[in-house]
C-alpha cells in the first residue's frame, strides 16, 4: 500500500465518527433505493411472467346475455388474437366457521379444454371433471383466509337455490392477483373469494345455455386496443354490454400496477433526499478537512504530487465512505426487500413470488451513490486541486469579526460575553450557519415525511369508515329490484335503519378523455352515506348533477359547472349530458354520486334499487346473516367492520413496517447531521476554546459556547425542518396522486412533535459526545498545533 493510501485510511480512521454517520446516511438512501428498485424489478418480472405463461387477457367485457355465435363475430374483429367467452356470476356463500355470509365470484371454465385466456395455476388438488356440477376450484386467498382444504365443501346460493359445492382444487388466476370484491379497495379474503366451475353446469343453473355474459380477449401484437374496444362495444351493446375495458383498467392489474408505480416513485424521492443530505455532509466535512490539511496539501504538491494525485487522494476518502455506506445499504436494502416480499406475498397472489436483487440494481446503486458523493465532495476537492502550493503554505487569513446585529442596535451590553461570542460566531459565518441549519432541518423533514403517511392513512380510515360509510352493513342485489325491497330489508331482524342505493355502470366522456365509472345513486338526505368536499367538510348531495372524485375531474379535465357526456351501459342505455355539481375528496378509485331520484330520471326508470345500506343492531347480527342467506336476490353482503379488520391486519401491518423503516432512517440522518455539525464546530474552535480555558474559563463555560451554538442552530432548524417536511410530504402526496389510491396531506401535531423531539434528542446526544471530547481537550497540544 502506498503511503498516500495509508494516509487515506488513517484520515478516515481519525474521522471515523463523522465518516460512519455519513456512511449511514448514504447507506439508508441506498437501502431504500435497493429496496424499491429490486421490488420493482421482482414485481414487474413476476407479473410479466405470470401474465405471459397464463395468457392474461388484454381486453375484458361483461354483458347481460349473448348467444355463443356472438363470440365468432367478436373473434373477427381485426386485431383479436384469442378470445374466451364465459359466464361470471356473484353468489352468496356459506362457509363453515364463518358466521356471516361471504360473497363468491363464480367464473366458468370450459368443460373439455383449457381456457384460451386467463389460465389458472393449480396450487393443490385436481382440475374439474367435465360435466360435474358440484365441483369447484377455489382461489388460494379465500381458502387460506377461511382455512379451507381440498375436500371441504361450501354452500352457495346459485340462482336462488342452495347448492353444496365440493372443493377439488385450489387455484390462482392472473385476473385475481389482488383479490377484492368489485368496488372495494382493500382485500377481505375471508368474505370474498373466486370460484371456478364447469361452464355447462353454470350455464344450466343460470339459464345461459348456448350463451355467455363475459368475454376476455387477447390482442395481436401491435393491434390498437382502443379500436378493438370500440368495435367490441358496438357488438355487445344489444346484449346488455357493460362497456369493455382494457387491461390497464382491470382492477387486479390496476392494484399491482399501482404498487409498482408507488415503488417507482418512492425509489426516486426518498433515496434522492438521503443522498442529497449525504452529499451535503460530505461537502461540509471534506471542506473542513481540506482546510485543516492546507499545509499537508502544500507539502504534497511541493514534493511533486500532481494536483490530480492530491484530488484523487481526497476522492478516495470519499469513495471509502461511499463503499462503507454501500456495504451497509445494499444488504440492508436486500433484507428489507425480503421482508417486504413476504408482505407482498400476503397481499398479492402469484404462483411464485421470488425476490430478486439483480446486479444492475447493485451497480446503479453504487453508481448513483458515488455520483452523489462525488458531486457533494467535488467543490471541496477542487479547492484542494487548485490550491496553489505557495499559498497553501500560509495559514488561512483570520475571519474578520465585527459587531453583531444586537450590538449595532446598541443592545450588546445587555448580552453576556459568552452569548455574544456565540452570536458573533453564528453571524460571522452566515453560510456555514445556514448550511448547518439546513442540514439539521432536513433531518426533521425526513422524520415528518417518514411519519406522515400514517397520519394520512389514519385520516383516510377515519374519513372512509366514519364520515363516509356511516352504515354497518350493505347488501347488493343480484338484479334490479323495485324500491319496495327496502321495506323487506327494514323488516329483517336487527335492521334498525336502512336506505336504498342504486349503482349504474357508465362511461364518462369529456372530449377525447373517458373513464368507466359507476354512478352511485344516494338518497337525498342520506344519513348513512356522508360525502366530503375537498376541504373535508361534509356536503349534501345536490338535487341534480354529479358529485365526482376530484381525481376524476382532473382526469376528464372538467371544472365544476361544466357538463360531461355520460353513456349509461345498462337498461335503456341513454347517453346524456350531465353537469358536474361538485368535486369530492376521496382516496381510492374514481367515483361519482348522484341524487337517487335524479338518477332515476336520468335512467328513465321507475324507482329501483340494487343495493341497501343498513344500520344493524350488533346483538342481532348473526340472526340477520341467517336471514340474508335465505334471500335469493341478495348477491353480496359487506360488513364494514370486516373491511376495517382486514385493513388492520394487512395494510396496517405493512404501513407500520414501512413506517418503522423510514423512522429508523430518519433518525440516522438526524444523528448524522447533528453529530457532524457538532464535531466540525469543535474542530474549528478547539484552539479558541483551549485558549479560553487557559485564561481561566471553566469547562462548563466553554461547553456553553460550543453547545449554545449547537442549540441555537437546532432551534432554528426545527421549525424550518417541519415546514420542509410539510412541503416534502406535499410533494410525495402529489406524485402519489394515482387513480387507485390518493393520500391526503394530513400531518398530525404528534408527527411534528416527534420530529422536533427526535432532532432535539439527537442534538442532545451529539452535544454530550462533543462535550465529553471538550472535557478531554489537551490544552497544551491544541495550543501548540498551528491551526
Amino acid at each position, binding site marked *: 500500500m502506498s503511503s498516500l493510501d495509508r494516509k487515506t485510511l*488513517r484520515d478516515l480512521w481519525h474521522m471515523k465518527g463523522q465518516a460512519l454517520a455519513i456512511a449511514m446516511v448514504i447507506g439508508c438512501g441506498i437501502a431504500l433505493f435497493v429496496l424499491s428498485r429490486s421490488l420493482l424489478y421482482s414485481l414487474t418480472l413476476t407479473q410479466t411472467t405470470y401474465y405471459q405463461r397464463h395468457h392474461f387477457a388484454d381486453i375484458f367485457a361483461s354483458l347481460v346475455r349473448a348467444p355463443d355465435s356472438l363470440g365468432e363475430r367478436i373473434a373477427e374483429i381485426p386485431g383479436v388474437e384469442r378470445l374466451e367467452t364465459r359466464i361470471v356470476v356473484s353468489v352468496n356463500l356459506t362457509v363453515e366457521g364463518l358466521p356471516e355470509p361471504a360473497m363468491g365470484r363464480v367464473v366458468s371454465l370450459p368443460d373439455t379444454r383449457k381456457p384460451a385466456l386467463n389460465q389458472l395455476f393449480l396450487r393443490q388438488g385436481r382440475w374439474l371433471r367435465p360435466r360435474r356440477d358440484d365441483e369447484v376450484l377455489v382461489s388460494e386467498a379465500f381458502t387460506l383466509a377461511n382455512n379451507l382444504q381440498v375436500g371441504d365443501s361450501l354452500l352457495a346460493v346459485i340462482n336462488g337455490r342452495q347448492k353444496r359445492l365440493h372443493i377439488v382444487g385450489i387455484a390462482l388466476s392472473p385476473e385475481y392477483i389482488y383479490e377484492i370484491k368489485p368496488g372495494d379497495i382493500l382485500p377481505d379474503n375471508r368474505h370474498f373469494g373466486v370460484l371456478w366451475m364447469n361452464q355447462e353446469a353454470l350455464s344450466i343453473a343460470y339459464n345461459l345455455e348456448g350463451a355467455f355474459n363475459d368475454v376476455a380477449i387477447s390482442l395481436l401484437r401491435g393491434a390498437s386496443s382502443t379500436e378493438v374496444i370500440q368495435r367490441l362495444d358496438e357488438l355487445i351493446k344489444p346484449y346488455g354490454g357493460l362497456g369493455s375495458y382494457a387491461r390497464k383498467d382491470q382492477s387486479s392489474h390496476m392494484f399491482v400496477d399501482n404498487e409498482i408505480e408507488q415503488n417507482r416513485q418512492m425509489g426516486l424521492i426518498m433515496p434522492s433526499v438521503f443522498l442529497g443530505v449525504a452529499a451535503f455532509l460530505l461537502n461540509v466535512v471534506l471542506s473542513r478537512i481540506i482546510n485543516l490539511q492546507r499545509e*499537508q496539501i502544500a507539502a504534497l504538491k*511541493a514534493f*511533486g504530487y500532481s494536483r490530480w494525485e492530491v484530488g484523487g487522494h481526497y476522492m478516495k476518502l470519499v469513495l471509502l465512505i461511499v463503499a462503507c455506506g454501500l456495504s451497509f445499504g445494499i444488504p440492508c436494502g436486500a433484507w428489507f426487500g425480503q421482508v417486504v416480499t413476504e408482505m407482498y406475498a400476503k397481499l398479492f397472489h402469484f404462483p411464485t413470488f421470488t425476490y430478486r436483487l439483480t446486479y444492475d440494481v447493485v451497480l446503479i446503486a453504487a453508481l448513483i451513490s458515488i455520483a452523489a458523493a462525488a458531486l457533494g465532495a467535488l467543490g471541496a476537492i477542487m479547492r484542494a486541486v487548485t490550491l496553489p502550493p505557495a499559498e497553501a503554505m500560509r495559514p488561512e487569513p483570520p475571519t474578520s469579526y465585527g459587531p453583531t446585529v444586537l450590538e449595532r442596535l446598541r443592545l450588546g451590553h445587555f448580552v453576556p460575553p459568552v452569548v455574544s461570542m456565540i452570536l458573533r460566531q453564528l453571524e460571522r459565518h452566515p453560510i456555514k450557519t445556514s448550511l448547518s441549519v439546513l442540514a439539521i432541518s432536513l433531518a426533521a423533514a425526513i422524520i415528518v415525511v417518514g411519519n406522515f403517511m400514517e397520519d394520512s392513512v389514519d385520516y383516510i380510515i377515519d374519513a372512509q369508515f366514519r364520515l363516509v360509510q356511516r352504515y354497518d352493513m350493505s347488501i347488493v342485489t343480484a338484479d334490479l329490484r323495485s324500491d319496495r325491497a327496502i321495506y323487506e330489508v327494514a323488516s329483517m331482524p336487527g335492521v334498525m335503519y336502512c336506505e336504498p342505493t342504486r349503482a349504474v355502470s357508465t362511461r364518462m366522456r369529456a372530449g377525447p378523455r373517458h373513464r368507466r365509472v359507476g354512478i352511485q345513486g344516494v338518497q337525498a338526505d342520506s344519513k348513512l352515506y356522508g360525502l366530503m368536499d375537498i376541504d373535508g367538510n361534509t356536503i349534501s348531495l345536490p338535487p341534480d348533477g354529479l358529485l365526482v372524485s376530484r381525481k376524476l375531474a382532473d382526469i376528464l379535465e372538467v371544472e365544476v359547472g361544466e357538463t360531461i357526456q355520460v353513456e349509461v351501459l345498462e337498461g335503456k342505455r341513454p347517453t346524456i349530458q350531465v353537469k358536474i355539481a361538485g368535486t369530492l375528496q376521496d382516496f381510492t378509485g374514481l367515483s361519482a354520486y348522484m341524487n337517487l331520484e335524479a338518477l332515476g330520471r336520468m335512467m328513465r326508470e321507475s324507482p329501483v334499487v340494487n343495493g341497501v345500506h343498513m344500520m344493524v343492531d350488533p346483538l342481532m347480527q348473526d340472526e340477520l346473516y341467517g336471514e340474508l342467506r335465505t334471500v335469493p336476490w341478495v348477491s353480496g353482503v359487506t360488513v364494514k367492520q370486516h373491511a376495517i379488520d382486514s385493513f388492520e391486519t394487512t395494510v396496517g401491518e405493512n404501513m407500520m413496517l414501512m413506517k418503522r423503516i423510514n423512522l429508523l432512517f430518519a433518525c440516522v440522518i438526524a444523528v448524522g447531521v447533528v453529530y457532524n455539525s457538532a464535531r466540525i464546530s469543535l474542530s474549528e474552535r478547539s484552539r479558541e476554546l483551549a485558549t479560553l480555558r487557559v485564561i481561566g474559563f471553566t469547562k462548563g463555560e466553554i461547553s456553553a459556547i460550543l453547545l449554545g451554538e449547537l442549540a441555537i442552530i437546532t432551534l432554528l432548524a426545527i421549525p424550518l425542518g417541519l415546514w420542509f417536511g410539510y412541503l416534502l410530504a406535499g410533494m410525495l402526496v402529489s406524485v402519489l396522486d394515482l387513480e387507485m389510491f390518493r393520500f391526503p396531506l394530513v400531518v398530525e401535531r404528534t408527527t411534528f412533535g416527534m420530529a422536533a423531539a427526535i432532532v432535539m434528542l439527537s442534538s442532545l446526544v451529539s452535544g454530550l459526545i462533543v462535550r465529553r471530547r471538550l472535557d478531554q481537550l489537551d490544552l497544551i497540544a491544541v495550543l501548540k498545533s498551528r491551526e
Partner: protein
Amino acid sequence: MSSTRSTQLESVFAARKITKVYHMGEVDVHALRGVDLDLYRGEFVVLLGPSGSGKSTLLNILGGLDTPTAGSVHYLDNELTNFDDAELTRYRRDHVGFVFQFYNLIPSLTARENVALITEIASNPMSPSDALAMVDLGDREDHFPAQLSGGEQQRVAIARAVAKQPDVLLCDEPTGALDVETGVLVLDAIQKINRNLGTTTAVITHNAVIAEMADRVIHLSGGEITSVDKNSQVCEASELTW
C-alpha cells in the same frame, strides 16, 4: 572534509529580472522587484533578509511552487517560467527537495511513511530507512510526528526532502520554530546532505548567524538583492550559536 570549498561555476539556477506582485484586495504588494540570481551546482547558499524581504517568494519560484509575474528562471537548460502545471509538478518531483519552517509532515503517517510518501513517486530514491539514518533518526522510524520533538520532526522533514536524492534542496526557515540546540542539529543535517550528496542547497533565514555556514550569502531587502557575500571561511553547523 575541508572547511572551504571552491565554487563550481556550473549554474543550476539562473533567474533574470524576476518580479512578483501580489494583489491583496486593492493594494499591489511587490514581493520581488527585478531580482537576478544564479545558484551553482553543489554550493550552499543562504538567503538572508528580514520578514517581507521576498526571500520565501524567491525560494518558492525557484522550487516551482510559484511563478513570477515577470522575468525568467532557468533550471539547467529548462525555462521554468514556460512550464505548465504538469511540468512544474514533474520538475518538483524529480529535482527539488523542500524543507519548511513548520515541517509540514503528514501527522497521520509515521516518520518512515512520511519519507516513503516521497520515495514512492521519485525516480531514483534512497530507502526511507537510509534517509532517516542520515539524520540520525534510524531508531524513530515508526513514530508519528506527534510523538517526535520539533527538532526530530524537522529532521524527518529533511530526510523526506533528501530521500529522493534531489538536485536542489530548498529550506525555508528550517530552524525558525526551533531552539538553538535543536536548530544546530537540523542545520548540521542539512550541511551533511550538502557535502555528502553534493546537493545544491539554499536556506532562507533571517538569522544572520546561519549565514556563516554558507558558501555564499545573498542579502535581500524590500524585494531586491542588496548584496552577495562569499564566505572565505565556512563554519561548521555545530560551531554555530545564537
